[in-house]
């Protein structure tokens, strides 16, 4: 961990050097530094949405243009410069807010392309809304050109951007983004309300882009649509961030410093084909170092440079092994009356013409462990998805401890007390074990913890589940069993009333299965967690379940004890086919 300390102490020296520029260099150095700072603010603010949340916004530059225009329009009407700059940032933020609603319905490549289309769209709007933007004429500004002041503002903006990056790495908000980056659905079922989070980071990045745009308008003294919305310049800051290394705190800075300098050197030393050389560099990085320059193996051999490339992971002091006397969370109350923890009535889930779940009803009392069985395709996981609101049931009702889940979002349902694991484990892959669990602790409905405390507490959950020795291991490098254990620990950390466990035993050795059963038993006995367990392995179920529910082709075949189920002829037919000839 010393490495990152080194990097984080030395890299700010770049900004110290930057602060000295107006006093040390000629105005050329100043002009060059201004272009670097502007690019840096764009690149760094872009990476919040991309590196942290996993959304590639190719139209980031559009907000730069919005800020530039807002500033220019107001300044040309006599508004003071500071208000103009603030207005630029604000206008960009509001634009981002409005665009969030349509844009975040998209993911991946579609999101990238929709955002890319923003640039020509804004350019056309700027060309044609001539009453406001003066169209192709552009807006000339007669402002005092106080270069040093302008530079200082840009530097301030750059430092603020760095501060935000640091904050994101160490804050609850940042954790939400990292969870979203890995797996949005799981983030939701862990209690994170994802849309406002995405919207917020989008607005944050746009505000900085708008700020940089406003300053650019001031600097140039003139803007017109191609200058601020042109496709030819729009991808450059993004290429710079990717070049250095997206997701790393110093990635964009390295990218800006190197590519910005290369660009300038090419322009002044190469008589022709400068863009070709530039494009070649970008292409080679894409081909050979797509993780960015900072992530190359060669770089990692040099201690200082390796420290630049360290992904930020929060850690907790290694666990001493003593679980401590306090329980992990206050056990679910055992109610005196026989009120149900889960009441499923006539749930139907249709996909097109196919009813995956067809009129299933189920009543579960607190503290019960129910086994849910049935052949493949019988609707078990779909039922889980209905209960946790991954799907909205076509009809029927689901009530959790008296609360109807009818119009609830996934994160609301998680807050009400439903936790789940998945058939194929879905941990937050690029985060460590401790971060995975801590996220559940931070965002749960019942008594959510402050993130620093969450990191400490997470260790206890890990220890409880048996992976206390792997706290700093990246989740996607764990073995299958450990991933399943981690999922369990993460689900338990939500302090659920009801835990949905989906085929956790498949792929495990009998010893590992026993270990799991012990965990489930502890969850029920010590913490009053009600469990529904989907499983094929009957002997495992037999050790713990109170009852079995059998599904087949979406309908409930029977409900009763394991012995009854196993001996039921219809169940046998469902599993083995009619005539029951297979043993």
């Amino acid at each position, binding site marked *: 961990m010393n490495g990152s300390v080194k990097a984080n102490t030395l890299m700010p020296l770049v900004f110290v050097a930057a602060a000295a520029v107006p006093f040390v260099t000629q*105005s050329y150095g100043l002009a060059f530094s201004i272009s670097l700072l502007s690019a840096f603010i764009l690149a760094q603010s872009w990476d919040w949405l991309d590196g942290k949340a996993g959304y590639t916004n190719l139209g980031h530059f559009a907000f730069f243009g919005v800020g530039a225009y807002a500033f220019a329009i107001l300044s040309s009407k006599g508004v003071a410069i500071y208000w103009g700059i603030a207005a630029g940032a604000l206008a960009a933020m509001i634009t981002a807010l409005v665009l969030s609603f349509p844009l975040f319905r998209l993911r991946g490549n579609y999101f990238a392309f929709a955002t890319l289309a923003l640039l020509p769209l804004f350019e056309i709007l700027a060309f044609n809304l001539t009453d406001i933007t003066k169209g192709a004429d552009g807006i000339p500004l007669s402002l005092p050109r106080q270069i040093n002041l302008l530079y200082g503002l840009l530097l301030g903006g750059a430092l603020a951007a760095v501060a935000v990056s640091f904050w994101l790495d160490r804050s609850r908000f940042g954790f939400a983004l990292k969870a979203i980056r890995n797996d949005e659905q799981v983030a939701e079922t862990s209690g994170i309300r994802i849309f406002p989070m995405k919207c917020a980071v989008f607005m944050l990045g746009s505000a900085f882009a708008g700020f940089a745009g406003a300053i650019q308008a001031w600097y*140039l003294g003139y803007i017109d649509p191609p200058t601020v919305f042109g496709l030819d310049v729009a991808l450059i800051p993004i290429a710079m961030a990717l070049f250095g290394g997206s997701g790393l705190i110093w990635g964009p800075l390295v990218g800006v410093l190197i590519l910005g300098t290369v660009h300038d050197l090419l322009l002044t030393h190469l008589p022709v084909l400068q863009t070709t050389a530039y494009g070649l560099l970008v292409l080679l990085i894409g081909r050979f170092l797509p993780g960015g320059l900072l992530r190359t193996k060669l770089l990692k051999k040099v201690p200082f440079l390796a420290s630049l490339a360290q992904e930020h992971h929060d850690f907790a002091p290694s666990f001493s092994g003593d679980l401590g006397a306090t329980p992990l969370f206050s056990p679910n109350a055992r109610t005196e009356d026989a009120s149900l923890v889960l009441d499923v009535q006539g749930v139907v889930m249709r996909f097109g013409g196919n009813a995956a779940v067809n009129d299933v009803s189920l009543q579960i009392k607190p503290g019960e462990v129910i086994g849910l069985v049935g052949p493949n395709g019988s609707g078990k996981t779909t039922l889980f998805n209905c209960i946790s609101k991954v799907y909205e049931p076509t009809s029927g009702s689901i009530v959790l401890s008296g609360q109807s889940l009818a119009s609830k979002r996934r994160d609301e349902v998680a807050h009400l007390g439903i936790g789940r694991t998945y058939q194929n484990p879905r941990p937050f892959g690029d985060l460590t074990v401790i971060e995975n669990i801590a996220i559940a602790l931070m965002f749960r409905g019942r008594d959510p913890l402050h993130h620093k405390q969450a990191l400490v507490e997470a260790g206890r959950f890990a220890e409880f589940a048996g992976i206390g020795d792997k706290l700093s291991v990246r989740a996607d490098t764990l073995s299958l069993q450990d991933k399943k254990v981690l999922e369990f620990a993460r689900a338990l950390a939500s302090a659920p009333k009801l835990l949905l466990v989906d085929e956790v035993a498949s792929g495990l050795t009998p010893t590992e299965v026993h270990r799991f059963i012990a965990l489930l038993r502890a969850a029920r006995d010590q913490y009053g967690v009600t469990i529904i367990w989907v499983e094929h392995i009957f002997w495992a179920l037999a050790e713990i379940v109170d009852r079995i529910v059998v599904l087949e082709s979406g309908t409930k075949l029977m409900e009763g004890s394991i012995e009854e189920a196993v001996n039921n002829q219809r169940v046998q037919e469902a599993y083995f086919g009619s005539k029951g000839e297979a043993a």
Partner: protein
Amino acid sequence: MKLSRVALLGMAAAAIAGISAGLASSASAAPRTDKCAGPITFGTTISATGRNSTLADRWVKMTEVFETEFNKDGGIFIKECNKSLPIKIISYDDQSTPATAVTLYERLATGDNVDFFLGPDWSAVSFAVSQVVERHKIPTVMSNASAANIWTRGLKYIFGVQSTAEGWSNNYFEMLKGLSPGPKTIFFVAQDNLLTKDVVAHFSKKAEAQGIKVIGSEVFSPELKDFTALALKLRSAKPDLIYIASYDAPALPLIQQMRQMKVKANGVHEIMTTGKLIRTLGKDAEGLSGELSWLPGTKGDYSELIERVLKGSDVDVMDYLWTINRLNAYLVMMQAVERAGTLDRDKVRDVLDKGTFKSPVGPITFHEGGISDVPAFTTQVQDGKAVIVAPPPVAQKPFIYPSPSWQ
């Protein structure tokens, strides 16, 4: 190898300082110490790549040839030094981007330490660069920067040679006055661009003042490829004259589709009828009238030098319509320095402010704010070739109206 933290810090700081210093002064010339030594340096940027490169890419070579030819002719005589000094023009590619141009002019000012500036071109770039020019108090003669508000800010060190909207089609409209029967109606079509819309605004008024009724005015985006809608509007309006204010490339599909849609008129005018446009249109170009800043073969001051330069760099002014403005900017600056007799920037500036300078198109004087105007000749495509039809002193052939090709 374990380095102490202090050592690491020191190394890092040194590295950063070194890079900044290096950048600030890389390949720079030292500031001029001896007023009479070495070549007189002029710094400029040219849009060799990017959006405007279609208008200017050949000018890089042209500038080099200008430097060679001008030096062959003897350079500039500096009275203060009592000798002639050669010139050297340092040029960079601004990629048609204002922000890049600003950084490059800063570099020319304090990195390359040039004596004077030339250019740049185009309103957006010039607007941004004008502030750099003014801050460093280095006079420049810009070219092709026609936006009026560049010149109304009271800047002292910028001067410009361009074809402004006001002067553009003056000769054409004058010529129209002499036609009998004259045109009664006119339809304006403008590309969505500052200059072209300015031209239309100005000449709409002039048309009305001459008694030609404006029956339509449309604007189109330069990206537009399908002009069916526009052609239909033109066809149904049936104007006497169709006046198109557009750069040549966007006008190409427009005129082609006007022909296909059988749009008819007595005369069709395109303000930038370049050689490229005429060649690509082929038969469709017949009868098209337009404007040209200068034609080789026209006699005037320095015309021989200019023809040598154009030939040596293979620049056809019929294709690169804005060339003469840039070359005139060079000529004016050279004359100003010689007239001042010194390399003192303020003295040169004063000379630019008050003087009249020679050029192949006639005398150039800078009006209020530093702007000057270059009148354009009116041309018409007759039998596949562009000929000058106005003003009368230089006309090669008479103007054909109504144009049979367009009826």
